Structures are given as structure tokens and as C-alpha cells.
């Protein structure tokens, strides 16, 4: 047995408060939510009668939740595509290191400092069919670009995506830019010496090296888009109809506006599982890579 030593105990005492807090507030609470989802609790008074998976079965039968899943997939796909294309494009342009690049870089990233509430409020005004973008497009003789934006079920989700891409694409850009700056100039130089064109050196040297960063960006942005809440809340509140409803908003309304706590807990659990499916492998991949280094 090793002798008692404060140097062994102190570190554990130092992180103990955080570990206890996370154990309760994250894992304990998740467990309780999962348990709540298996009960009959509806109304303000808790009712812990066990009902098995009934809430989940009913949930998946509701038209609203089915719409949520379709909307989430649709939103995530377009949101990711938009952020990756704009992010990579902007990063490559900035990596040309032209005079004034830093100013453009700051402009592309400032939306990240704003809240989704501010973003949503402002974009709702820009999307206003009578005053906003439609007027601009008409003046530019681009009438075919006019749309009902947030007011029509067919265009509302895509409009929401535009605002989300506006806000988050700078994150993608920052990641790609860090990646590009991390690639040694010699590698590209070597490709040029071997007679590669600018495009070929990008396609066969730079892009493969950006693959891990692209994966990180997809996972981080992907999990953000699964959780998207604020923006929907302020821009459409899920409407028109269910056209922009999302699991996160559905959970909030079901639980805190309709007092259907057990069903709300079921939605929360499904949402958590979707996020965990994406994040847990990513965490393992990251931390494994760290110990190998």
C-alpha cells in the first residue's frame, strides 16, 4: 500500500466539485428524463405510473413528430452543404493572402458573436415579402428570385436555412482556414515542381489533408443543426403548419406549454440519441488520437 500523500488527494479534491455537478446535472438528469419518458405524467402534477414505451409509440404516430424528423434531415442537409461550400470557398479566397484579407475575415465571422435571436429578428425583416428581398430582386430585374420566404410552407424551411448558414458558415471558414494555414508551403511547392496545376495541387495535395477538418466541421455543425431551437422559435415558431417544426421546439411546446411532460421527455430522449449517435464516436476518435500522439 502506498503511503498517504496530499499530492495524490489534492488533485482529486480539486476536480471533485465539477465531477459531482456533471454527474448529477448531466448523467443523473438524463437518466431521470429517460425514466420520465416511460411514465404517464401529463398535467402539472407528476405521475410516475410506468407505461413502458407507450409515449414513444404514440409520439412516432403523430403527424407533427414525423414532420419534425423530415424537417431535421432536410434542414441539416442544406445547412451543412451551405456552411461547407461558403466556408471552404471563403477560406480558399482568404488563403490567397491578398491585401485586406483580415478585414474580410472579420466580416465573415462577426455573425458568430450574435445570438440566434438577433439573427432571427433581423432576417425576418429581410424576408418580409413586401419590404425586403423581394423589392431588391425586383429592382435588380431578378423577379424570378422572389419568394414567399417565411410565409409559405414550401419556402419557409429553406429561408430558415439561409439565416442559419449566414450565422454559422464563419465557423466552418475558421476551421478550414486554420487547416489551410497548417499545410506546409513546401508540400504545394513540391506539387508545383512536379508540374501540377493550381487546381491539381489543390485536388490531390490540399484537399486530402483537409479531410479530418471537414469531418470535424460536419459533426460539430451537424449536431448544432439537430439541436436548432432559438432560430426556429423567433423566426417561425414551427409554422406555417408544421413546415419548420423541429424536435427541439416540439419538446419545449409539448412540455412547457401543453404540460405533456412524459411525451416531452420522450422527444428529448430521441433528440439526445440522435446527437449521441453523432458525438460519441467523434469523442472516442478524438481522445484516441490524443493518446497516440
Amino acid at each position, binding site marked *: 500500500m502506498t503511503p498517504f500523500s496530499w499530492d*495524490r488527494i*489534492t*488533485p482529486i479534491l*480539486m*476536480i471533485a*466539485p*465539477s*465531477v459531482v455537478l*456533471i454527474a448529477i*446535472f*448531466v448523467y443523473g*438528469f*438524463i437518466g431521470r*428524463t429517460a425514466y420520465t419518458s416511460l411514465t404517464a405524467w401529463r398535467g402539472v402534477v*407528476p405521475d410516475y405510473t410506468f407505461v413502458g414505451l407507450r409515449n414513444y409509440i404514440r409520439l412516432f404516430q403523430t403527424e407533427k413528430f414525423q414532420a419534425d424528423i423530415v424537417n431535421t434531415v432536410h434542414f441539416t442537409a442544406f445547412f451543412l452543404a451551405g456552411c461547407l461550400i*461558403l466556408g471552404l*470557398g*471563403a477560406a480558399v479566397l*482568404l488563403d*490567397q*493572402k*491578398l491585401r485586406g484579407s*483580415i478585414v474580410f*475575415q*472579420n*466580416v*465573415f*465571422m462577426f455573425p458568430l*458573436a450574435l*445570438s440566434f*435571436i*438577433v*439573427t432571427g429578428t*433581423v*432576417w*425576418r*425583416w*429581410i424576408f418580409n415579402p413586401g419590404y*425586403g428581398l423581394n423589392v431588391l430582386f425586383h429592382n435588380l430585374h431578378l423577379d424570378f428570385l422572389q419568394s414567399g420566404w417565411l410565409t409559405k410552407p414550401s419556402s419557409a424551411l429553406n429561408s430558415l436555412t439561409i439565416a442559419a448558414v449566414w450565422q454559422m458558415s464563419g*465557423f466552418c471558414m*475558421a*476551421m478550414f*482556414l486554420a487547416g489551410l494555414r*497548417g499545410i506546409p508551403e513546401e508540400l504545394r511547392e513540391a506539387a508545383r515542381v512536379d508540374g501540377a496545376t493550381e487546381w491539381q495541387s489543390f485536388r490531390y495535395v490540399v484537399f486530402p489533408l483537409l479531410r479530418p*477538418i471537414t469531418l470535424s466541421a460536419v459533426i*460539430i455543425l451537424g449536431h448544432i443543426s*439537430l439541436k436548432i431551437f*432559438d432560430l426556429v422559435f423567433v423566426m417561425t415558431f414551427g409554422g406555417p403548419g408544421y413546415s419548420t417544426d423541429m424536435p*427541439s421546439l416540439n419538446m*419545449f411546446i409539448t412540455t*412547457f406549454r401543453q404540460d405533456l*411532460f412524459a411525451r*416531452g*421527455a420522450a422527444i428529448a*430522449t430521441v*433528440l*439526445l440519441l440522435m*446527437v449521441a449517435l453523432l458525438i460519441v464516436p467523434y469523442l472516442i476518435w*478524438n*481522445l484516441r488520437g490524443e493518446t497516440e500522439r
Partner: protein
Amino acid sequence: MSVLVAAPRPRAHLRPSTIVVYVLLVLLAIFYLLPMFAIVVTSLKSFAEVSRSTLWELPKAPTLEAFGSAFETLAPAFFNSVLLVVPATLLSALLGSLNGYVLSKWKFRGANVIFALLLFGMFIPYQSILIPLFQFLSTIGLYGSIPGLILVHVVYGIPICTLIFRNYFATVPRELLEAARMDGASVLGIFRYIMLPISIPGFVVVMIWQFTSIWNEFLFAITIAQQQQVITVALQNLAGSLLAQYQIQMAGSLLAAAPTLLVYILLGRYFVRGLLAGSLKG
């Protein structure tokens, strides 16, 4: 972020490809600045002018009326947000620095597992803890209050703060610690007299990150502190109740965004560092 700020390569002549790059950069900049244009132009109009003109017309008779109305409505919430964000940021930075120090320099058996379990807490959708949290805060009497919201932000800020400090302390050479050990310094002594003084940049990154995140947070605020409105909730209410008064909505948006925008303008590179830390690999 040093990797993001590279010296410009000198270019004497303007090649066609350079012009193409500039054109594309300007087009992108227009897209990103569009909402800023909408905010500034609209917030300087009177209600009469907003309803009569489109978003794209510059104000004919600029007025600060809208800012007055927005400030009157938002001031209490703005003050609440300050009361929330200052203690929450300080406390979570403090906890993060303790954890980061231990998890990078005093790794005990199982430390990496604990780190992974802490990190997971940063990615969860908070809906998955919201019901028990609501019950818990009601039980201890903190539901609907700023102290309750502070507690929540401190707890759920632990993972990201720990991550940033752990990465930061990992760059401190082992020799520094060993020298201090030789001189008889304790675990806490090393933290207090060696690590804390050199961790100012780490604190700056963490505090800017927490300040921005907490100031902008909405889900916790609307669920557990509806009675004590913070700025995001108040702005959402304002936008929902003054539907046609876009000039007040835009002025309010600028007021709500001002503190974090200011921090971004003044300390942008630290903000970016926190941002990239959140993606782990960065």
C-alpha cells in the same frame, strides 16, 4: 489565433485572378453585411417612414426615436443579463482552470475517462435535462430567478471551460512543474503561484467564450427564468409584440448584440480560439 493571422504575401501587379478573388470576396462581404445594413438603416427611421418605405431606402429624416423606445423596453432585461453573465463567467472560468490543471498535469488513473465524460456534457441537447432541471430548481426555490440561471450556466459551462484550460495547460512545459516540486511546492501551491499567473491568456479565451455564450443563450432563459427576463427573451418578446414596428425591433437587436459585438471587435482573435477549441481538433 496565430495560424489565422498570416503576413500578406506582397503582390506588385494586379493579376486577373486577383481581381476575381476580390470580386468574390466583396460579394461574400455583401451577403454577410446585409443584416447590418438592415439594422442600421431601419433603426434610424420613424415608424411612419418604416411603413411607407422599403428596407433598402435610406432614412430621409434620421431619428434616434427607435433606440429610445427599444432601450426603455429592454433596459431591465439588459441589466439582468449583466447580473447573470458576470458571476456565471467568473465562476465557470475558475472551475475550468482547476479541472484543466488537474486533467493535464496531475493525471490520476481514470482521468481520461472522466475528461471524456465531462466533455460529453458540452454536446447534449439541453432539452434532455430540462425537465429534471426545472423540477430541481423549483424544489430548491431558484426557479425563475437569476441565481438559478447562474447556477445552470456555471454547471453546463464546466465542460468547455475545462477543455480550453486543459489544452492551454498542456502547453506548459513539465520542467517548470518539476523545478517547483524540487523547491517543495505543493499541488495547490504550483497552481496558485505558477500556473495561475501564466494562464491569463487562457482566462481571456474562456471568459470571452462564456460571456458570449451566456449573453446569447435562449433555451434556459425562456424555460427557467421567464419571470426575470434576460436580454434574449426580452428581445424575442419585443419582436413578437411590436410586429410592424421594425425600427424598434432593429434598434433592439443592435442593443442586444452590442456587448458581444464589441468584444468580438476588440478581442476577436481570442474569440476565434475559443470557437476552434469547441471543435476539439481545431
